[in-house]
């Protein structure tokens, strides 16, 4: 970060501490405000509460309720894993090949195709999903996990294609040209030389695709009609109204934890890379 070096922390005198205390109090309060809802949900999902499956003492009663919900939570987790896995894989393959094409080749319709890909961002989710419901029904992909993954991949393309294009453009042309002179085909130049060089871009694209597909609500809501094929967000949202019309808040909390935990953990592991990826100038305005 270029701004990082402009202000060095100096040793604080008494006056310095007096000036800084309100700042620390304020920022700590802000941090607590952002973290509190997550921590509260995690804690209360295992704490006793009347009207849930965890009335006396601490324990995992709410998770047991969640586990026994309809087809069993494992089915929904598996569905979600399949959808996210397929989406991440498809997004990585399509955007790597596409980014390579846009960054390194000149072909007829190149700019038009790139702008059309970015235009996906401008179009409302609902505007495309309702006709997609009809189209996927026609080809037998409605009510399938593959259908959902294909649709989610399409929605990922503007960001991922853009990201991979600038990642490839940041690699010196000499690298792949040297490989080609040594007899590599354009594909083996991509596979052996360029792919390792664009790894940060791949991680960012993969992380975004995972977070988006793991959490997506609207696409499965419209495309999936069979309750056994529901993804986790849909199942947890539907779970609320199931138990004799009374909302089981405990099981909902457990569901939120199961939904959020992989995302938060993954984010914390990759956050250094992710924040740096953003700040390293990938998005120069």
């Amino acid at each position, binding site marked *: 970060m270029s701004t990082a070096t402009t202000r060095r922390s100096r040793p604080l005198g008494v006056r310095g501490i007096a000036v800084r205390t309100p700042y620390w109090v304020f920022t700590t309060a802000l941090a607590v405000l952002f973290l509190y809802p997550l921590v509260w949900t995690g804690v209360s999902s295992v704490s006793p509460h009347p009207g849930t499956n965890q009335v006396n003492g601490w324990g995992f009663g709410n998770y047991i309720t969640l586990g026994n919900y309809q087809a069993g939570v494992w089915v929904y987790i598996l569905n979600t894993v399949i959808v996210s896995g397929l989406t991440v894989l498809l997004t990585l393959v399509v955007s790597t090949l*596409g980014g390579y094409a846009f960054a390194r080749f000149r072909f007829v319709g190149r700019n038009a195709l790139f702008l059309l890909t970015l235009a996906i961002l401008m179009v409302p989710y609902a505007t495309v999903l309702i006709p997609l419901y009809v189209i996927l029904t026609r080809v037998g992909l409605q009510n399938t996990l593959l259908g959902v993954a294909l*649709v989610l991949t399409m929605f990922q393309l503007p960001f991922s294609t853009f990201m991979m294009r600038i990642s490839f453009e940041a690699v010196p042309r000499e690298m792949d040209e040297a490989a080609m002179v040594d007899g590599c085909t354009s594909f083996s130049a991509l596979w052996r030389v360029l792919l390792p060089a664009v790894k940060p871009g791949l991680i960012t694209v993969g992380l975004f695709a995972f977070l988006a597909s793991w959490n997506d609500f609207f696409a499965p809501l419209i495309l999936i009609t069979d309750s056994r094929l529901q993804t986790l967000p849909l199942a947890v949202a539907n779970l609320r109204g199931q138990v004799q019309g009374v909302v089981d808040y405990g099981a909902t909390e457990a569901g939120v934890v199961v*939904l959020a935990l992989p995302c938060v953990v993954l984010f914390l592991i990759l956050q250094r890379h992710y924040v740096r990826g953003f700040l390293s100038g990938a998005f120069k305005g």
Partner: protein
Amino acid sequence: MTVAAPARRITPPRPPRRRRRSAAGWLYATPTALFVLLLFILPLLVVGKMSVSNWPLLGGDLGINAPVNYQKAVLNRFFWDSVGFTVKYTVLATILLIVLGLGLALLVQQSTRWKSVLRVAFLVPSALGLASASLLFYVLYSPFAGPFAHLLAGTGFSFLGTPDAALGSTLFLIVWRYAGFYMLLMLVGLQNIPDDVYEAARIDGAGPLQTFRGITLPLLRPTLALTTVLCVTGSLLAFDQFYILTKGGPDNSTITVVQLIYSVAFQGQNDLGIAGALSVIVLAALVIINIGQIRAFRGRSEV
């Protein structure tokens, strides 16, 4: 955000080689082209057709009936209410997220260890999906299970009980979920402002407020444009948060346009024709609004 064109042009190669590279380029671009064509362009054509056809959810395409769907769409008893509510929500959410995103960014701009911790704390909620965050706040706001339940028990207030409270509570959820992300975009923008500009301002004796108004804001304009367009687009298409948190209530006061489209298509009315007409109207409005925003930001930067 301008899309950087390749900086260098390759020296014009001999014709046969260029043809080969062109063919290879298309080969690599084919998967992208297939996705864009089959899952984006084709649906847009179908939704256009849908909007001028009699097309019940289960009956399929029963032929052209233009412009009946558009008339029915505008005459829907929730149409103007949902447009009004969506616009109100969008204006409030955009102002809140831009101001708070920028505020947080200024707060954590320098990289000290404590500020890195703060940055991560603000960003953690953005790892959650909007549906998960909405479910989380659904419990948090609950008058039975929420942490404030016993405090509010006697007051008669509930987070989702009145139209204004429901809107405010949803806005709080959205700020909680997205403020960190907008902070990150603002940080990228702030980072692109050269240090010597600030240095010059300091030498000229500018105070912090003057520096902010005279340097930071004008030089941040591209970032502000990008974040505003992103935020307006996202908010106009709001669905998950209201579908899960308020279910359009209380008294149908929080129905957004996309919720209206969803309910016309799949809940009760089951009319894809009218839903298609609504979708086309939303798409047209969004394109016009975004062109207007981009013009506005460009126009001002030329002055």
